[in-house]
């Protein structure tokens, strides 16, 4: 398998709740243009394109048909990826596979979401309707309350069970969720590409009402419009096309578990905070990357947290610390931008959630930190050699993990 590096990243100029000045394809085009501008490459140098978004949120389908010319895909192989929240990382992994396999040398990955083009009804038509059918096929009734609707707050309601289970296992207090939320929102305030950019205190979070106990409005992510593009290349092309300042993808892993982890389909995993699929995905990625002790070897992490407790929970599941330790490290300031192990210096998915991009922005932020190309004050002051990116989604049960490094793997 060949070494593969991220050679450049491009974001839309802003990530906001409503981009009313562009269509979806025009917004994707902004990200594609940005990555070409940042790398100096042209579309002629791209061999293949992979694109991803959360398929039904805007009630548009077949983007490989109508978005292709906006992302430089005309006349090239194009593939569309959709794995829910993890879509972004799966899209980048797919681009990675294209190059690692030796079939292509330079591949463009583009992800987007334009939530504002849909509204609650469109979301219902596109997402909830098929879920009602999934649930009916599994003997659960969304409408009368014994399904996801029975959790009172939609996906937040479903995540509430996970948050409670995490609190039980870890010994953390609900105040630790408030604290993580305040940290990430304050980080986002420093990031020009974040959506909710306001320095936030624990008291600000605690002033928001509960949705489903223990989760409050202040513990949940926004819906965002935005797009991200990223170019990956083989080692030979890195030498040919770049100055060598790139971020190498040295380990990838993904795993699904029993969908009952989603809480609303029956199955034999009865703890939504167990997240065995995260451990399996991490183990695979760490083996590939040669990571022996994840608690010591990473300089930063970007974890997927639609809800604020998840940064703490996944730090433990990914082996960044022992079970029950994440909230203690949070208290010590270890996860701050200038801490021992900065977590979500970008503000995380928790502050910016254009879903298709959410899990791709994690490795992209890692890559920019490694390359020293962060625009904004959320730049981590220390040298980043190894970084961990994580994605979570599917139907709550799917995890993806990527290890990035400032140096390529030695050829075996």
């Amino acid at each position: 398998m060949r070494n593969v590096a991220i050679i450049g990243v491009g974001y839309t100029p802003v990530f906001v709740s409503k981009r009313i000045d562009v269509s979806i394809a025009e917004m994707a085009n902004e990200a594609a243009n940005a990555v070409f501008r940042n790398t100096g490459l042209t579309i002629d140098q791209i061999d293949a394109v992979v694109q991803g978004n959360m398929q039904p949120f805007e009630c548009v389908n077949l983007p490989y048909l109508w978005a292709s010319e906006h992302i430089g895909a005309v006349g090239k192989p194009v593939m569309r990826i959709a794995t829910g929240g993890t879509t972004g990382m799966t899209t980048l992994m797919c681009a990675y596979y294209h190059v690692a396999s030796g079939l292509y040398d330079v591949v463009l990955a583009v992800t987007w979401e334009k939530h504002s083009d849909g509204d609650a009804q469109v979301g219902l038509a596109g997402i909830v309707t098929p879920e009602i059918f999934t649930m009916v096929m599994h003997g659960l009734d969304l409408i009368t309350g014994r399904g996801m609707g029975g959790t009172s707050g939609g996906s937040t309601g479903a995540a509430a069970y996970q948050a409670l289970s995490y609190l039980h296992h870890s010994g953390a207090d609900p105040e630790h969720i408030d604290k993580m939320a305040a940290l990430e929102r304050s980080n986002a305030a420093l990031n020009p590409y974040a959506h909710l950019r306001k320095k936030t205190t624990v008291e600000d979070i605690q002033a928001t009402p509960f949705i489903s106990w223990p989760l409050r409005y202040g513990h949940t992510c926004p819906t965002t419009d935005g797009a991200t593009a990223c170019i990956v290349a083989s080692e030979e092309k890195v030498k040919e096309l770049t100055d060598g300042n790139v971020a190498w993808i040295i380990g990838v892993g993904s795993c699904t578990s029993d969908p009952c982890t989603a809480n609303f389909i029956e199955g034999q995993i009865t703890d939504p905070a167990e997240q065995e699929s995260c451990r399996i995905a991490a183990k695979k990625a760490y083996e590939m990357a040669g990571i022996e002790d994840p608690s010591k070897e990473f300089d930063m992490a970007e974890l997927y947290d639609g809800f604020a407790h998840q940064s703490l929970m996944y730090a433990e599941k990914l082996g960044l610390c022992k079970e029950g330790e994440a909230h203690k490290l949070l208290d010590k300031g270890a996860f701050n931008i200038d801490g021992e192990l900065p977590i979500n210096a970008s503000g995380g998915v928790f502050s910016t959630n254009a879903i298709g991009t959410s899990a791709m922005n994690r490795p992209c932020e890692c890559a920019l930190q490694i390359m020293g190309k962060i625009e904004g004050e959320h730049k981590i002051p220390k040298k980043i050699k190894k970084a961990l990116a994580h994605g979570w989604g599917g139907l709550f049960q799917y995890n993806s993990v990527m290890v990035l490094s400032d140096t390529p793997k030695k050829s075996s």
Partner: protein
Amino acid sequence: MVNQSEVEFVETIVPMDFNYNIRAGKPIEDYLRGMAQKKIMGSKCTKCGKVVIPPRNVCGVACGKMEMVEVDQTGTLQNYTIGHVKITKGLMEPVEEPVVLGMIQLDGTNSLLVSEIRGVDPKQVKKGLRVKAVWKESPEGKFDDLAYFELAS
């Protein structure tokens, strides 16, 4: 970025009625037939012996064929949340009184059932409470025949 007032939105109406014909599968049909008789039907793996509700054909762990079994209507609260909102036509709105929603492991089963728990103060709810199923007076073979769970004495 442009000012919202400068932009005209295009309202799009989709001129169609949507009719879906979903086959839920035989285990779920049997589950609903059980509901009509105030019975909770599950399925048991012929390989590993695990029991899940609602029932299904295939065991996700052992990949064994599953057979229908009736399960106990009393169980243990394994996880819960307190709902402060409800969703009406896709929009969240606050509820007057918070609702206790729980994940219940019925005795002898290896999966969880999500249901409302009534008759327990949200401040008193905790993992491990023993609960039992309460049925609608006249069940009709529908999911909501199993109305809610209450504390088992």
